[in-house]
């Protein structure tokens, strides 16, 4: 009966367009939001993944770079290097700094680029200098574009005028981004005399990593967090902040899709009630007719999905070019579950037309 479903859909091109458009909008919405969520989640962990450490050592209770402050005296380094199994222990300093520039608020997470210890360098420098000199700063290209800050411009960071020496990539995280200054400038900005925020510990090749972590945590002032766990803790910021919003938008998307398919298929069913009555009269079973209606909804939904997915990819690519903050990642897995949602949406939205279909009296076809 698929051919009848397709013929019915194609017969009413405007209605088909509305159905497909509704589902496409819904899929575009869901896929773009999921893409943004995934993109931001990845982005927030991207820089941390490049930092060379087996363990991040934090002040006790601090779990990530953003939610909970961590300040450790530099003397902790001596303790760490003395722990059996620890290969290196290097200080890592950085925190959020807000300032105004050209009448706009800018948030940077300033990191000390410690060339001596080879810690705190940008993940990728795409333009300008790779290592800042005194009085210089490297900012993320996204911030440069969105805030119109060019290489060579000077920006006031925590009372210090720093010249933008280069653009890095992979450090833009929603409302702020990583920026890199010399160790001396960073210490001045971060106001951390004799202290740092974290230590990055690497474990000797044959050492038992978890044993090393336990020995470090014997000191009640510190926690040892594996790199993966630390990335996850930071990524969870995106999840905790945006997941409820995403869920609401997801529900709105599903509701829009279901309403559009449901209404268009329902009106089509009403308009074709007589024809369905004829089919019942000539011996088509209710089950076969229900299948026709569900196939109509699913066909419209699949077409809408394809259009919506194509639009989402196009919007994602185009928006990323013009709006740097629009960082999306559309994965096959997400495309698959959104397809599943679209399919279920179509089947559920067929229920109303199916109920209407069940009430059609085939004897009506004898009435002129």
């Amino acid at each position, binding site marked *: 009966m698929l051919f009848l479903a397709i013929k019915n859909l194609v017969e009413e091109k405007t209605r088909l367009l509305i159905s497909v458009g509704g589902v496409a909008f819904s899929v575009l919405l869901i896929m773009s939001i999921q893409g943004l969520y995934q993109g931001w989640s990845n982005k927030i962990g991207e820089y941390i993944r490049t930092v060379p450490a087996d363990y991040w050592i934090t002040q006790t209770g601090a779990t990530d770079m953003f939610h909970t402050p961590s300040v450790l005296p530099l003397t902790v380094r001596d303790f760490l290097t003395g722990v059996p199994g620890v290969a290196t222990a290097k200080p890592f300093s950085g925190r959020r700094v807000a300032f105004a520039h050209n009448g706009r608020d800018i948030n940077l997470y300033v990191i000390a680029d410690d060339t001596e210890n080879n810690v705190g360098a940008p993940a990728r420098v795409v333009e300008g200098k790779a290592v800042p000199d005194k009085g210089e700063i490297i900012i993320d290209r996204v911030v440069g574009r969105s805030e119109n800050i060019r290489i060579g411009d000077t920006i006031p960071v925590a009372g210090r005028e720093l010249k933008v020496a280069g653009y890095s990539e992979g450090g833009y995280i929603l409302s702020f981004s990583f920026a890199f200054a010399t160790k001396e400038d960073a210490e001045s900005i971060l106001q951390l005399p004799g202290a740092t925020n974290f230590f990055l510990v690497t474990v000797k090749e044959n050492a038992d990593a978890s044993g090393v972590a336990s020995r470090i945590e014997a000191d009640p002032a510190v926690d040892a967090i594996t790199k993966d766990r630390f990335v996850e803790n930071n990524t969870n910021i995106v999840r905790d902040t945006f997941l409820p919003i995403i869920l609401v938008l997801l529900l709105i998307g599903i509701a829009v899709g279901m309403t559009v398919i449901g209404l268009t298929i329902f009106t089509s069913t009403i308009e074709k009630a007589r024809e369905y009555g004829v*089919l019942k*009269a*000539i*011996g088509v079973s*209710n089950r*076969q007719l229900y299948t026709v209606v569900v196939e109509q909804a699913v066909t419209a939904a699949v077409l809408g999905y394809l259009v919506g997915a194509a639009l989402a990819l196009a919007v994602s690519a185009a928006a990323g070019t013009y709006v740097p903050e629009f960082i999306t990642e559309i994965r096959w897995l997400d495309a698959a579950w959104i397809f599943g949602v679209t399919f279920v949406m179509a089947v559920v939205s067929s229920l109303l037309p199916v109920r209407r279909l069940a009430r059609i009296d085939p*004897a009506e076809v*004898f*009435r*002129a």
Partner: protein
Amino acid sequence: MNVVAVQDVSKTFGAGHTAVTAVDHVSLNVDAGDIVLIMGPSGSGKTTLLSMIGTLMSPTTGRILISGQDTSTLAPAQLSRLRLQEFGFVFQTFNLLSALTAEENVMMPLITAGVPRKEARAKARTALEQLQLGHRLRNLPRDLSGGEKQRVAIARSLANDPRLILADEPTANLDAKTGQDVTLLLCETACRENRAVIIVSHDQRLRTAAKRVITIEDGRLTAEEAGDHNLNCRMHPESVQS
């Protein structure tokens, strides 16, 4: 065995003092090869009777047997199956599916019955060619004339080789000549293949095709007479053998 046996059937709509009896204790047998014309004024119960014979409506009292099977004992799905296998319907307003071509309209009952698509297409094509519609296979109903639409409807009604064809006012929406031609075509085709036909109509000219003419008034059968049955009913050899 009768193709149709209507046994003391009544149909009442509503209840209490608003009850209306549309069909009142009607009994009627129709055999293979019968062409029965049911006539009567509007509101006499013709269409209600036809709907009950077609199992689209159930009687209030009495029973209807189709090929010996009591339809009151069948579940809705079984009734659908019975209609698909035993009945062909021709309607006053043609009732073709607007999204389907002439060929696809005729294919519908075949596909519903599980006939493979290719075979269904071939059968539909043959049926339409026999009704001189070979050049209209790919046309949608909106592109066909009234007479052509009714011929497509006839081809559809015959598609599953039904034993009984039920036609409701088949000439009503056609001009006089086309209406008569098309109905005679239906009757001749059915007659040649030994199918039973029940036609409900006001059209007196259809007497020429009918073997029996039954009059119904106020829900009751009031008269039965022989029709002219002036048709070429030379039967196909296969039908004779069966």
